[in-house]
Structures are given as C-alpha cells and as structure tokens.
C-alpha cells in the first residue's frame, strides 16, 4: 500500500533479508496511521546501516555523526517544539559511541522517540562486536570471542527512570508497529529497542535464534518500575513488549526558559531585541 513517506527510486544499501527493511516499513506505516504530516516530522540518525533509514523516506532528516543522533535530536526538538522528532540508529551508534548521550537523553526527557536497531553486531564495518553482542561471539577483532558483559539498554533506561521503555522484534511487524506508535504518542523520551537479525554478519543471533529466544511479555503492569526492572534483568529469553511507561514527567524542551512562555519555533520569533539590548548595555554604563 502506498504511503506518503515512500521515497521512489531509491538505491537501497541494505542486504536482502535485513531487518532494516522491516523497520523502515514499520516506521512509515506507524507514522501514516498516526496521521503525522510530512512537514511536521524530522528524522535524526547517526552513522551505520540502520542510520541510513531516513534516506529512504520522504521526510526532513538530519543524518549526523556516529553516536550523536540524540543530542542533535534533543536540540532540534528544543529549537522547534512543534516537530515530531525520531532519533534512530543501530546498537553500536546509540549504546556504544553515543552511550553518554543515551544516559543524558533519558535524564533530560525530551519528547522524542529513540528507535534502536539492535542486531548485536557492527554491520557497516563488517562484523565486529557491538555493545550488545553476547559473550563468546568471535570476529576479526574479537578473535578469541567477546568477553565483556553485553550492555542491557532496557535495564539502564529503567534504572535511569526513562519514561517509556520497550523492546520489539523486527520479525513481528504488527506488534512492533503498535509499540512504535505508542512510543511516538508518548510525551517524553521513548526507547524502542528493536531486535533484528543481521543476515550477512551475525551468524549467532539469526531470525531463527530471535524466534527461539524471545517471548511476549504478559501479565505485566508497565507502570510498575520495579517489576519492569526485574523483567529487564531476568536471565534467559528476551521479553518483547512495553516494559515501563510513566506520563508524569515534564519534558526537556518545555522546561527551557526560551520555550516557557513562547512555544513557536525559534526561527519564527521576532528577532527585534533592540530595546532590551539597549537597556542591558546601559546597565554597564
């Protein structure tokens, strides 16, 4: 079905069968089902295969530096609170290179959606370990296998009191789309960690492995942060669904003095500061 976000004639750089294709479809469908208009959306990404996603959509985007999508997205939202802002990239980008920004974004709680394509490997650099790779995974760099503990993004996000934390699987388009829609609708920072296979380089965490090693969260109250943390830190299979959601926290951009009384985008504001500036200058006389 045609979608306003479809970008005709694109030369796609993703491998056939890559989970990125599904995630692109999911995001476009979620956005159009929510009726978010094209001129109100801004996609922000870092670097990597996942970060190429905005290229394949008809929407404004800022494809920035490796690991830096979150500070950029936070600032875009601050400069124009009217935009729907989605920051998306891979696990290496968001959790490795951008780890400090991941924590800071959760603390700031800007009203942005953070979609992380988590394939537990570095694809664009051809198969090195990512922060979420399992212990023992071998590569041309980790020649004897990974020995570091994998990063647990959900547990970290819940520990830092992120206001929306979810995990999905690219193989389940319907559930993932519903989660992404809720994440976009959520007012505040929303993390959606999407598990996806890397067909070219990750021979361990394959589509079959994900099916085998995931389960749908049931009988869980997303308002219960302790229960959410317990779920996120449980050993074994990975739970899919919304872990935690809290609606009571103020968002970053609305707490900035610049946006407290005036919510129009910064570029639209009257730049006439002459009288005020003259007063301020006179205070030095």
């Amino acid at each position: 079905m045609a979608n306003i976000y479809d970008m005709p004639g694109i030369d796609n750089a993703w491998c056939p069968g890559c989970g990125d294709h599904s995630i692109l479809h999911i995001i476009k469908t979620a956005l159009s089902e929510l009726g978010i208009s094209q001129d109100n959306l801004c996609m922000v990404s870092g670097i990597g295969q996942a970060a190429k996603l905005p290229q394949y959509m008809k929407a404004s985007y800022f494809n920035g530096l490796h690991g830096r999508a979150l500070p950029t997205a936070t600032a875009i939202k601050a400069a124009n609170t009217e935009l729907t802002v989605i920051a998306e990239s891979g696990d290496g980008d968001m959790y490795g290179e951008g780890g400090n920004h991941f924590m800071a974004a959760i603390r700031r709680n800007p009203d942005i959606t953070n979609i992380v394509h988590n394939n537990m490997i570095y694809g664009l650099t051809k198969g090195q370990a990512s922060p979420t790779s399992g212990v023992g995974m071998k590569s041309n760099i980790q020649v004897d296998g990974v020995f570091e503990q994998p990063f647990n993004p959900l547990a970290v996000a819940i520990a830092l009191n992120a206001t929306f934390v979810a995990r999905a699987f690219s193989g389940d388009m319907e559930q993932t789309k519903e989660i992404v829609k809720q994440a976009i609708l959520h007012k505040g920072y929303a993390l959606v960690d999407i598990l996806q296979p890397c067909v070219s380089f990750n021979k361990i965490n394959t589509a079959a492995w994900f099916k085998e090693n995931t389960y749908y969260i049931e009988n869980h109250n997303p308002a219960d942060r302790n229960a959410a943390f317990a779920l996120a830190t449980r050993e074994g299979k990975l739970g899919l669904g919304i872990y935690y959601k809290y609606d009571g926290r103020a968002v970053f951009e609305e707490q900035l003095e610049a946006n407290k009384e005036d919510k129009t985008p910064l570029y639209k504001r009257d730049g006439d500061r002459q009288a005020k500036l003259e007063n301020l200058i006179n205070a030095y006389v």
Partner: protein
Amino acid sequence: MPKVYKDDVSVVLCGEAGAGVQTVENVVSKIFKTAGFSLFTSKEYMSRIRGGSNSTQIRVSSSPKNCYCDRIDVCIPLDKDALKHLYGRITNDTTIIADKEAVGETEKHIIDVPFSKYAKEIGGAIYSNIIASGVILGLFKVDFAHLEKVIRDSFSKKGDEIVNANIRAGKKGYEIAEMILKDVQIEVARDEKTCEKMLLSGADAIGLGALAGGCDFISSYPMTPGTGVFAFMAKSQKEFGVAVEQAEDEIAAINMSVGAGYAGARSMVSTSGGGFALMCEGVSLAAMTETPVVIHIAQRPGPATGLPTRTEQADLDLALYAGHGEFPRAIFAPGNPSDCFYMTGKAFDIADKYQTPVFILSDQYITDSLFTCPSFKVPEPQIKNIVKTSPDYVRYKITPNGVSPRGVPGYGSGVACADSDEHDETGRITESENMRVLMHEKRLKKYDLILNEAEEPELHGASDYENLVVCWGSTVEVLKEALALLNYGRTAVLYFKQVFPLPRSTRDYLQRAKKIIFVENNANGQFETLVRSVTGFKSSGHIHKYDGLPFSADKAAEELRKIL
C-alpha cells in the same frame, strides 16, 4: 619627599584564593568609573578554590589605559606569600600598604595598616574587604557616598546592623587613606565623559554581541575561561528567549548547537582549547551539512590541561585546521570589548549567510579583564536567511555563488534533508565522483564570499611607518600603549581582528614596511606562519610570550626597543 603618582596609577591586590581580592575588585571598579575615572582591571588566579596567591590589578587613570602593565604603584599584599608572589614587580617607587602582622618581616618599606585588628573591632575578619575597598577609593578621594550606596544596595537585605557595620568599615578605610596620603600624593584627573562609557569584561562584551547577533541557542560544557560567556547567556536566557543547555560533554554541546542551527536557531558554543578539541568532528559536521554555528574559544595555555586559569594565544592553529576535510570558515580575534561586541555579532551574520562554522578566538586575559570603553551601538535586527520550502525544494541546490537557500524542517511543504555523508542536491547520500566534485566546489566557493566581507586590520601609529608591529586579538591594547611609551617616529601597530580569511589588504600593509615584527602570546608564532603562508612576507623579528601571563605594556615596550 612624598611619592607622587600621576594620571595613571596601578593598584595591585594580592591574597590567597577566597581571601576577598575579587570582592574588593567588584566593589571598587564600578565606583571608580561612576566617579569619572577610567578603569582597567586584570586578574591572574590559580586553578584552586582556596589558598595560593591570586592578584588583581586595578589601573585607575585619567584617560583609558586598557591593558595590563607590570608596574605596581600601590601594592596591597594580604599575606606573606602575596608579597613573595609580587616581589619581582615591586620597586622603590612602589608604595606597599599591608598588615605587618599578616605579611611578616620584610626588608621592604611597608605602611602598616592592621586590617585584621580593625576588622575585628568592627565585627569580624569579613569586614577587611570593605576596609580595603575604602582605602583604595579614599586614596583617589572618591566621594564616600558612592561606596555607601554600593554597601546599602548589597547588604540592605541583611539588615541595618550589617549595613551599618559595613559603612563603619568603609569609613575606617577612608581614614586610613587619609593617613597614607600624608606620605603619598595621587593626582588623577576625572573626566565627566567617562561616566557615559561602559565598564565591562571581554566575556560580557562577547555575550552582548551574541545577543545582538540574534543568538537564541547555546549548548556548552563549563570550561575555564570559556564559561564566562556561557554564564552570561544563561543569565540572559529569560529576557532574551535563549535556549541554554549544559551538555553532558563538549561533543554533545557542538552536536546540539548544530542540530539547533539545522532547525533554524542562531546557535553557539563557548569553550576553551581542550573542550574545543572534543568538538572538532562537529565543526566538520557543520561545514558538511552547511549549518551555521558560532564557536567561541577562550584560549588558555596547553597542551592538555595546561594552565587552566592562565592566558595564551596558541589555539589559532587548532581553530584554523579543526575538523577533517576541506571547508570554508571565518575566524575573528577581537582585541578589546568593542570588537568583542561587534565581531561576535558579525560572526553570527557570516555563519548564517554562508552556512558554515565561524570562530571567535578570545583568551583568559580579555574575557576576565574589565575595560572602560565607549557604549555599544545596537545593530539593526538580524535578517533571517531562511526560506519557506515548496514541494520541489532541495536543501543543497547548486547555485552560482555556492550558497543554497536554507530551508528548515517544518517550514513549508517541502523537506529539508541534511547529510554528513557526501550528498546530492536533495541531501541524499551519493558516491558519484561528479556530484562529489560539484558539491565540494560549491562549499569551497563560499570562501571567496567570506573573504569579500573580511574585517580590515586596524593601523595605529604613523601612517608613513617603516616599522610595523603586527598583532592579533588581545595584544592590541598592550601594543598601542607600548607604542606610546616608545614614542618612536615612523612606527605603527597593525591589529588583525579577523585572522582568517586574511583580509586582502594584508599584503599592501606589509609591503610598505621596512621592518615587520610579529608579537604573539605563544611560542611558535602561529599568526606569523599563517601570514607568511598566505602573503609570502617574512618577518624581521618577533616577540613571543608563553609563560601563561599576558604581555604588559611596559615590558612589551622594552622588548620592542631591543628589536626595532
């Protein structure tokens, strides 16, 4: 014979961090200017919160003397280490006012003022700051009413008792001054016109310039001495609607500013060399995505952590070459508060018009010093170079001059796609050799447009010069005074407030000189190297200083005398 100090008096206070040197400077500086004296203050301090030796120079003069000098006329050491710290600058012409009990035995002649005893009599050690302020103001016969007003304004919230005690402390200071004036004569004329001038730091002047330039977004990470501008913007955020965020690190700071710029803000960062080193990839990002951003670097000595609270001009090379790849940029180096104001405003305009990173290079000396300067003229409101997009809008349209109309997300029916990868006109990734060349040339073309608007260097001294002293940034006021001290004919100072791109007139100025001397607050002569690489001119000599302190007018004159 009483010592006589005329027209230009250098008062230096020195004590450990936290002892109140800063408080005294804050109390007296505005009062001097209000009373019609020209004032310049410069501080040197250690990177610690307590202990050590910090000093402040307060230059009181009949006409502006806007720079640091080594000479100390009146020295007020607050402890033993302070006297040691200033020892090399104290001569037989220096009058030392000190509490003998605090500074201990010394062969120097000291006018003994038992500050701590007097302070205790009034109510505690805390009053010694106001006593010292009273002494300094009293020496210049400044009307006591000025001090009384400042005391009432500052302490009225704390109740009458505190106000009255401080007034007694101030009066005590004046009594002491009167006693000292029996041995010392101070003659500095007042000028009513000084009352119309401003007294402000370079940091505040840059902040005001940013507001005048339309800045509405700043993200930074605190780092001395770049924090002053950041704090100024934070203080102004409510009134001027500036979005202010302390980032988690400098990498986030620059990426935020670039993000805000992409969304249509006029954004900036303020930092110092080490922090800026972390921002370099972001500078390249701004250039590639053609996003305006203003970067203020307040220089301090490196490498690495270096001397955190000292001054140097050694990050020109860093600003010049920061960011991988080739792209246009502009670098301003204001040398006094007026230029801090006007050049910062211009930096925002250039960044906005040419969609590229623009730098302001200051340093610890200029950001922390207070200057007396003519009031700033507020420029016309900024023109916003942002277009409303149509469905066929492309962000990186190839145009004859290289500047593409700048659309932002959410404004118009088109989309604004920015990319850090090489891209085509629509902003999509490309690896086409042809497109790469077109895009690279389009960006580089903007260099000529920036050069066309380059700020001309300023010539001070003889227009028919044979000797030309070349400087950039904060050394200008020092060299102007050194030139006056030298009193040589056919000698001039050429001051660059824009160091890149070098104004086209540079060659003409150099051509007319027989002798070219570069003076720089660094060891390698970074500006000299730049000028030589652009113009081919070699210097006849240079003076470099890299001990963490600014040049002083008297020492600079001495050095110039040797070399000219």
